[in-house]
């Protein structure tokens, strides 16, 4: 799938079905991992979580461990898929860029009325930083988790220092992961971010929102609109499901934001068949 403007819907195709599936697999398994992981601390019984109707099982370390394994299998699989798929396709849109720290600060300050939010690409600078953060923490959790799984096997003997190190790191990284999840959810509480919620379900984001907040991305999308074509040719050829050019999310940090232009003023004519909510071919 290539992100593109869906003129008739006044929307932009932001996330493919594959990307949404990745996000939700990671999100759901991540939350299950957090709950079952905290269940590996001797706390649900002590703090009477087990008294909550339906959660009497939560004090059982073995049940939690099985749930943790199952969710970790999903989480690790999704993470591997994510890395293989996007690195091979050259997707770099979520990777942090130079100046993201400063731009993030400006963005956050703009939320409390100080200064203006800098124009953004497909992802906001703080989204790129948050992605790097959660990816690094997840990597640490997966790596130390795999060591912990290995040491549980009856035929494996690992040095005590490695086990203690991996276990403590896994436990501490759990708190970093929890912090990341809380920050992610807290960002959703901000009204300015609300338009970004829908595309996590439908893939489509409001075009006007993109034009105003993601002007760098918007300019790229405008540029990518298909060139004028001869009508006869178009009738013969089946409309391509996506654009032949590069994968989505190429780095465009070096670009200066242009003045947003309404789609209607564009010289290029959008192929109507392309406007259709393309069933993402990836699903």
């Amino acid at each position, binding site marked *: 799938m290539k992100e593109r403007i869906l003129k008739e819907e006044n929307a932009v195709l932001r996330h493919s079905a*594959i990307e949404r599936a990745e996000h939700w697999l990671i999100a759901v398994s991540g939350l299950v991992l957090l709950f079952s992981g905290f269940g*590996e*601390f*001797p*706390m649900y019984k*002590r*703090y*009477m979580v087990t008294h909550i109707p339906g959660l009497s099982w939560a004090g059982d*370390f*073995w049940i939690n*461990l*099985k749930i943790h*394994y*199952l969710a*970790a*299998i*999903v989480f*690790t*699989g*999704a993470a*591997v*898929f994510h890395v*293989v*798929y996007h690195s*091979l*396709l050259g997707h770099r849109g979520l990777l942090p860029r130079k100046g993201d720290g400063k731009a993030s600060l400006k963005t956050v300050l703009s939320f409390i009325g100080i200064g203006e939010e800098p124009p953004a690409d497909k992802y906001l600078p703080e989204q790129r930083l948050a992605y790097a953060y959660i990816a690094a923490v997840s990597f640490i959790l997966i790596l130390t988790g*795999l060591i912990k*799984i290995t*040491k*549980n*096997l*009856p*035929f*494996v*003997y690992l040095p*005590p220092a490695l*086990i*203690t*190190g*991996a*276990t*403590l790191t896994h*436990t501490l990284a759990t708190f970093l992961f929890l912090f990341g999840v809380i920050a992610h959810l807290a960002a959703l509480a901000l009204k300015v971010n609300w338009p970004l919620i829908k595309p996590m379900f439908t893939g489509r984001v409001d075009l006007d929102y993109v034009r105003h907040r993601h002007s760098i991305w918007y300019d790229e999308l405008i540029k990518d609109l298909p060139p004028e074509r001869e009508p006869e*040719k178009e009738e013969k*050829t089946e409309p*391509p*499901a*996506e*654009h*032949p050019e590069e*994968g989505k999310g190429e780095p465009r940090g070096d670009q200066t934001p242009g003045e947003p232009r309404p789609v209607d003023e564009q010289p290029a004519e959008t192929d109507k068949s392309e406007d259709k909510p393309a069933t993402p*071919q*990836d699903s």
Partner: protein
Amino acid sequence: MAEAKWTRRNFLKKAGVVTVLGTAGVLDISGNAWARAGTYATLIDLTKCDGCRDLAMPKCVEACRVLNEKRFPVPKKPIQDLWPQKTHDDWSERKDFINALTPYNWTTVHRVQVDGEEIFIPRRCMHCDNPPCADLCPFGALNKFSDGAVVINDSLCLGGAKCKAVCPWQIPQRQSGVGIYLKLQPIPAGGGVMYKCDFCHDLIRAGKIPACVEACEKRLGNKKPLYFGTRDEILRMARSRAKEIGGYIYGDRENGGTATLYVSRIPFDQINDKLSEKKAAPHMGKARSLIQDVNAWAAGFLLSPLAMALGALGLVMRERKRKEDDTERKEDGK
């Protein structure tokens, strides 16, 4: 182009072979419960132990207490309850109690009568081959060492008592008011430090034998019921003794195998019945390895990433093919 050689079918075939071999490896080897066993083990022959009945305190219990006294907890009083619970564990006023495992008593001797026969059973940590206490401690405060010892790091232990909950025999015992959890206060986390037999890990490392075995030997010489040796020796000894007396072994299979073996003429379930009548812990009943249930899932960590990587590759190839087709179509159209 190298990429061209990576047809999907080719890749699937190769990856399939790797997956099957990897999984088979995990499943096959995981059946061998002895492979993780430590170097040493002990044998306790219940046909020979007289519980030091003529002494105020059994020699093994005494030796353990003398050796470890300097490591016993010195709690900071008053000890706070473990909020929101209205309790805490305090054995500091009952240090002399020797009829159970406590933070101040890491070996105890039970006494039961079965069919008119008096049996004395020295009890302490079994030192499992694959100890759930060490496997599941969220702080890595318990370790299994290559000599076979399962040791609690009392400077890292927060006293959550999870090790006790997952131990098939509930061996570790908590003393509140001591340990690093006090540094976390007022955050209500942790609850003290867990204590148990450490197989005299330091003595073994110094080439010596555990204090209990040594004390028993000093008193009874060749008639001693406690033996220490390499686990092969001890296992051989246990089997041959069991054969000799037509008896039973406890500890070789329990919880997947332990470094503490018992031999008895009387079946262990009968002994266990008497122990439960007396409400004496630890029990001598069945102890299934629950970590093995979880280990059955471990193969998923090979299969899932492999399958997902394959899936991703397949989708990437499809995407590239589509792009190529589009480019061709575009070029044809020119």
